[in-house]
């Protein structure tokens, strides 16, 4: 199980962040107010560490304390380093710190990337270990219960849309020359799903981040794109891509599968009196929905039962799997194709508000397209939001379907979203060295503050 867990995280957390790190440099991500306050309340001279600091957005909030950041992703750490932050690369599950040496720890949008309960516990225990008695930890995780909806399942894959974060695009737009993305959209009639993925080629031509020419304060302001004029066509394009956020890919948790496997084995024992044939049937490729062809199967095929659908394909050509998700998403109170991707002021209704980092990714495209472009029409069909059809009906017959499906799975980030009370229980039942001081719901996240017991 550990192997599957690490493999899943490797492919759907670490490599996604590593591959997309270049785009994070220009994300003017907001620091969450509650987190800022937690940091600002620290005593001067305190030792504070941000475990999973990413590009280090919290490392300059309070200059009166010693701020250390660490992350698994070298790419993100490099960005933080360039900003002058004190950072290092390490693993949350095995922190290279001495016992009880920090006054405060923050873990913002991190442990929801661990794919099993045991790993999430281990991550929290490690963070508790490095806390001095009386020291406090703040943990933020993505909530299952969002403002107007909830995820149907707790283990999800979130597609990552580079176009929503592209600095290349915004820069070249400012200069009047359309970015590569827009060119592709207009010129070649390539559907957005492929656009999302053409990152592979796109990325190689991306220039390394230099000084921002933008006058806005990187830490405070909304993404740069919100400040530019965007043509109507691009708005529609953005809206369409935004909708693809809702094409969730659900997965059965690895915990569940392990449990089922165990039960199945027990059943075999009972009824047949012998161990079931230890070689488990090879999974059909359709089951292993994250098999990206050349990348190979996500999970070692031999370690999964044939009917153990850990991953449910959403855009697979097999209909039944997707229906539950479709129904759920139908219930969502989304406004149809005029749903803006944007974070308009005070807009908290957008689903995309959920995860800390994704919220920050959204560029501010405020205008809705007047009509339907081909692009948005396509996406209306393949996303399951307001369509009454199952996505699969519509997913058929768009040219090169298989490639599109495979491509949209590139850069899918894995999340285990937390139910209400789950984080608290996790700590109360498994991490006795921590005492929970407070917990709350904040913009689609469950948040707790706990103290290391003396």
């Amino acid at each position, binding site marked *: 199980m550990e192997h599957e867990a*690490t493999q899943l995280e490797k492919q759907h957390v670490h490599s996604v962040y590593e591959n997309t790190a270049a785009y994070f440099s220009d994300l003017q991500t907001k620091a969450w107010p509650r987190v800022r306050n937690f940091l600002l309340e620290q005593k001067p001279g305190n*030792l504070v560490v941000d475990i999973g600091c990413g590009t280090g957005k919290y490392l300059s909030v309070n200059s009166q304390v*010693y701020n*250390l950041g*660490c992350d*698994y992703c*070298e790419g993100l*750490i*490099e960005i933080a*380093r360039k900003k002058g932050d*004190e*950072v*290092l*690369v*390490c*693993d949350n*599950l*095995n*922190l*290279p*710190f*001495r016992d009880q*040496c*920090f006054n405060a720890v923050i873990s913002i949008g991190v442990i929801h990337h661990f794919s099993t309960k045991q790993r999430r516990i281990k991550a929290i225990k490690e963070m508790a270990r490095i806390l001095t008695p009386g020291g406090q930890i703040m943990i933020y995780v993505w909530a299952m219960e969002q403002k107007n909806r909830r995820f149907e399942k707790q283990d999800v894959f979130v597609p990552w849309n580079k176009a929503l974060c592209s600095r290349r695009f915004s820069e070249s737009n400012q200069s009047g020359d359309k970015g590569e993305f827009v060119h592709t959209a207009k010129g070649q009639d390539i559907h957005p799903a492929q656009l999302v993925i053409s990152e592979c080629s796109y990325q190689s031509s991306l220039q390394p981040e230099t000084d921002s020419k933008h006058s806005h304060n990187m830490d405070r302001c909304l993404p740069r794109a919100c400040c530019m004029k965007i043509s109507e066509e691009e708005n529609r394009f953005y809206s369409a891509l935004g909708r693809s956020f809702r094409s969730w890919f659900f997965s059965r948790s690895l915990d569940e599968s392990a449990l089922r496997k165990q039960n199945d084995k027990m059943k075999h024992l009972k009824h047949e009196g012998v161990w079931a044939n230890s070689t488990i049937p090879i999974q059909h490729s359709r089951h292993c929905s994250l098999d990206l062809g050349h990348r190979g199967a996500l999970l070692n095929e031999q370690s999964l039962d044939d009917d153990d659908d850990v991953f449910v394909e959403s855009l697979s050509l097999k209909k039944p799997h997707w229906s539950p998700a479709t129904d759920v998403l139908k219930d969502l109170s989304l406004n149809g194709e005029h749903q803006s991707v944007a974070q308009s002021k005070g807009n908290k209704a957008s689903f995309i508000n959920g995860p800390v980092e994704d919220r920050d990714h959204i560029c501010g495209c405020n205008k809705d397209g007047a009509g339907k472009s081909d692009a948005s029409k396509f996406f209306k069909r393949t996303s399951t939001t307001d369509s009454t059809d199952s996505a699969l009906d519509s997913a058929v017959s768009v040219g090169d379907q298989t490639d599109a499906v495979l491509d949209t799975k590139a850069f899918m980030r894995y999340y285990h979203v937390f139910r209400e009370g789950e984080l608290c229980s996790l700590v109360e039942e498994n991490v006795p060295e921590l005492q929970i001081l407070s917990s709350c719901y904040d913009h689609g996240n469950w948040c707790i503050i706990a103290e290391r017991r003396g």
Partner: protein
Amino acid sequence: MKLLTHNLLSSHVPGLRPGGGFPLRIELGHPSELPPEPLPNYEADEEFLRRLHHVLLEVEVLEGSLQCPDSGRRFPISRGVPNMLLTEDEA
């Protein structure tokens, strides 16, 4: 990597004796500018404190490595960033 950070780091290679991972040995050619032991009443020694502050917070290791005292395992520091990840086999 600042020296103060180094003070917080410990090798986490599995199988070490308790406390065997600290302190990591910094490998580079730079000689220390501090006396080996703090003098008594060092808190009042302005000059010492200044030098201590400088070494802890104003000197950074850019390239080098941190060596685990017990196992000898080296963790690289490059461009000022230590990489403390263990390989899958080690962990």
